[in-house]
């Protein structure tokens, strides 16, 4: 536990983190953990976060050392895509029973489980995740992994992030630490070259990295390792020989990026493939970093040409939506705007941003939001479900973009909604991805169901009829009500 505490302290004190830099020494020492309110908390645990980051490594067996719930309630639940190995989608857990817990058989069962996996599936590596119960019973997963690795001759990687130690984000970072401690640098590639890069924090959700990779291929840039999206174990193990890195999802793996820079001299930048200008910016940055590291400067021109060509195509495609989406109001509820260039592109085609949550935004972000939103009031920390519902019910927005957690707030308020988080069905990265996002917004807003679900039932929308019908004593009123009904023609009963 002491080594785990030290690790947590270490990842909280991240010098490359924007938030952290803004804190004073005392606040930095306290770490980033927010105290949770019992009965009013939401979100995943550290184990969840660690598994999210590592699970998309496709040819690894991910073994969860826990009673059933940790894995049984959560497996095969994310939309990362693989171009080859499928082992990552097979779920492995020690499924500890009462007897295992009482008799302290956890470590032995874990060791046996690793052997069974090795014998049946022969993966290049097994990742072993500790959890609340196995941390509480004091199972030494690092020792078991070490022993099993030696005995079975394969990489067995302990991922020490039990749920109770903190949030999903902390788990993300501890997963990065596990890669640094046990995986990256363990294999020397024989084909390292001057155009090799790493992409960190890209999950290849709905296969969206495949909208970007061909662009890199065209420029002659090779992705040594994309961590974790569509990664193979050997890619990750030899990732230390890349020349440069791009960090995509900044809060999740910043510690990984910085430590790779320190240990193996791989410079990195933070960027995004969401939105047109961000995609271009990312490509440009990659090329520049590679040139700084000794690549042929010619690549800069080629990059510029590709960007110009692709941007022109994308803007032309987007322009087709301008007429349909002009003036439509977007509510962003993502816990922090992930990419400004998405917002920029939406505004470029005439959409309005009517509100955004700034829960995870930096001071710099907040300033930008103020410039975009005409009204400060539409910047909110975190809106209570009830308020959000009221806002949407009163048609203060034409669509809400958010994660699955708030999906039903929009839908039950009969408001169009689009998933822009991890469970989404569509790829939104790169130039084509931005066009796809706008297309999905258009489809959502203009779906013909909205005017159907918003209409009250016909018998509820004639107020006098409703009030007068039960009053049978008043004959005149009843007669009036019946007459109102009688003159209907076939047209009124569904002939349209």
């Amino acid at each position, binding site marked *: 536990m002491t080594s785990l505490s030290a690790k947590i302290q270490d990842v909280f004190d991240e010098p490359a983190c924007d938030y952290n830099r803004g804190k004073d020494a005392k606040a930095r020492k306290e770490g980033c953990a927010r105290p*949770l309110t019992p009965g009013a908390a939401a979100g995943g645990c550290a184990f969840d976060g660690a598994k999210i980051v590592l699970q998309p490594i496709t040819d690894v067996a991910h073994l969860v050392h826990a009673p059933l719930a940790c894995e*049984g309630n*959560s497996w095969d639940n994310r939309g990362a895509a693989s171009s080859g190995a499928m082992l990552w989608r097979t*779920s492995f857990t020690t499924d*500890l029973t009462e007897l295992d817990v009482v008799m302290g058989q956890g470590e032995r069962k874990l060791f046996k489980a690793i052997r069974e996996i090795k014998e049946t599936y022969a993966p290049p590596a097994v990742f072993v995740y500790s959890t609340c119960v196995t941390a509480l019973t004091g199972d030494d997963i690092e020792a078991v992994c070490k022993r099993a690795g030696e005995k079975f001759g394969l990489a067995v990687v302990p991922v020490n992030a039990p749920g*109770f130690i903190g949030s999903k984000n902390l788990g993300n970072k501890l997963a990065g630490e596990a890669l640094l401690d046990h995986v990256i640098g363990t294999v020397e590639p024989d084909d390292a070259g001057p155009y090799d890069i790493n992409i960190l924090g890209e999950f290849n959700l709905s296969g969206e990295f495949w909208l970007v990779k061909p662009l890199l291929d065209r420029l002659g840039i090779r992705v040594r390792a994309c961590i974790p999206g569509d990664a193979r174990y050997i890619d990750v193990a030899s990732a230390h020989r890349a020349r440069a890195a791009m960090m995509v999802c900044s809060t999740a793996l910043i510690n990984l990026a910085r430590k790779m820079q320190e240990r193996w001299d791989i410079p990195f930048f933070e960027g995004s493939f969401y939105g047109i200008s961000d995609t271009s910016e990312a490509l440009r940055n990659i090329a520049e970093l590679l040139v700084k590291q000794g690549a042929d400067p010619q690549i800069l021109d080629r990059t510029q040409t590709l960007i110009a060509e692709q941007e022109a195509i994308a803007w032309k495609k987007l322009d087709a939506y301008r007429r349909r989406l002009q003036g439509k109001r977007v509510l962003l509820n993502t816990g922090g705007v992930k990419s400004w260039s998405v917002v920029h592109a939406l505004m470029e085609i005439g959409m309005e941003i009517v509100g955004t949550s700034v829960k995870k935004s930096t001071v710099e972000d907040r300033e930008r939001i103020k410039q975009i939103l005409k009204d400060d009031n539409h910047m909110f920390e975190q809106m209570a479900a009830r308020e959000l519902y009221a806002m949407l019910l009163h048609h203060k927005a034409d669509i809400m973009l958010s994660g699955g957690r708030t999906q039903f707030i929009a839908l*039950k308020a009969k408001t169009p909604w689009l998933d822009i988080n991890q469970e989404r069905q569509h790829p939104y990265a790169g130039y084509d991805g931005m066009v796809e996002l706008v297309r999905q917004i258009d489809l959502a807003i203009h779906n013909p169901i909205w005017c159907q679900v918003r209409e009250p039932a016909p018998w509820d929308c004639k107020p006098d009829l409703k009030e007068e019908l039960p009053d049978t004593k008043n004959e005149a009123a009843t007669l009036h009500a019946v007459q109102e009904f009688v003159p209907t023609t076939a047209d009124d009963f569904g002939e349209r």
Partner: protein
Amino acid sequence: MARILPQNKAAAVNPLKSSQPLGAALAFLGIDGAMPLFHGSQGCTSFALVLFVRHFKETIPLQTTAMDEVTTILGGADNLEEAILNLKTRTQPKLIGICTTALVETRGEDSAGDIAAIKLKRAEEIAGTEIVLANTPDFSGAVEEGWAKAVTAMIEGITRPGERARQPKKVAILPGCHLTVADIEHLSEMVESFGLEPVILPDISGSLDGTVPDRWVTTTYGGTSIEDIRELGTAGQCIVIGEHMRGPAKVLHRLTRVPYVLFQSLTGLKDADRFISMLSAISGESVPAGVRRRRAQLQDALLDGHFHLGGKKIAIAAEPDQLYQLATFFVGMGSEIAAAVSTTDMSKILEKVPAESVQIGDLGDLEALAAGADLLVTHSHGRQASERLGLPLMRVGFPIFDRLGSQHKLTILYQGTRDLVFEVANIFQANRQAPTPEKLNPLRKRETSDGPRPSPLTRH
């Protein structure tokens, strides 16, 4: 009698189970104004919540006591108290259903004692909200066990004990967790059609049937009312569906002397007949014309469907009562159970499953045993096995996250059985393979097999 084969692997591969606290929470979700609360770390709740949402496509009220490192060491009683008070102020629930998790059970927390103390100390603040506890560690049981424990907890905690004046028309129904929203609705209408008044505990058809309320509600809206649970002892008869509900029925009987009759399955003509006959007997009414008509429709469905189901080899993985329900259905249609896999060995019903053996295990076991079968029957996680084996998958149970409307699928009584016959027959028709000269060649290399193989000429 089926042999029960225990699990002897160390690594579970592709779990069949969902956790015990999730089952308890599902039962609490069938109560009006309810808020289930997991006593554990926030991840326990988050995983269950996401899975519920993926299945029901609904907002699901579910909260956590958010145990962290410090409370894991020092104890979670304060977290429990804070969570209850927070929920009370924020959501005004009529019921807080506490489900413990492996974390607090491994610590050995005395949650019952903690709750008793909180009820005493905070009597004023929590007035008007029932608080019940189900001890549901993740390391034992699965959904069935959790569901039954929650129902028992509600009867023990809320139902007024003692023998009461009985209302002969009032029927208490304790459905198992394998009944869908549509099943419960149908059951209720059927009972009403005999002039009886059903009270269903829990009633997910009132709360998880997917509607659009006209305001934002943070607890469940609909389901069994607390008042109905309190007055359960005035029922003339209790009807129980599924072996795992025997425990709660016994408790109700012990506390109120209400007699119960248990149906292990309501699927299939014979079982439906038994149920309808009983309704007729306790109500003194003859069977309504509409019900007779449904029965005739089922007879016809059996006639039309048996061509497609006869001789088929079925591989099923499900919780014990659902396994029994479906296995008896398939065998009743002339199919054969090629593989039967279940979650826990605690249920007495398993030995009655019409299969040679029942393997306690996971979907990895199902996949291994299903080679040579014609159809896989399990929840959505069977999709990978289905792809790898090239076999069609019929989705049943929980969770079903890659198809819409699973809660509205009817599986019981004449109409539900009819629907099942059609569903299965249609799966076979959609996956039928055209005859080829190679497959029919009498001189082809035959597969070696001891038993009779299905003829290649079998009509699909």
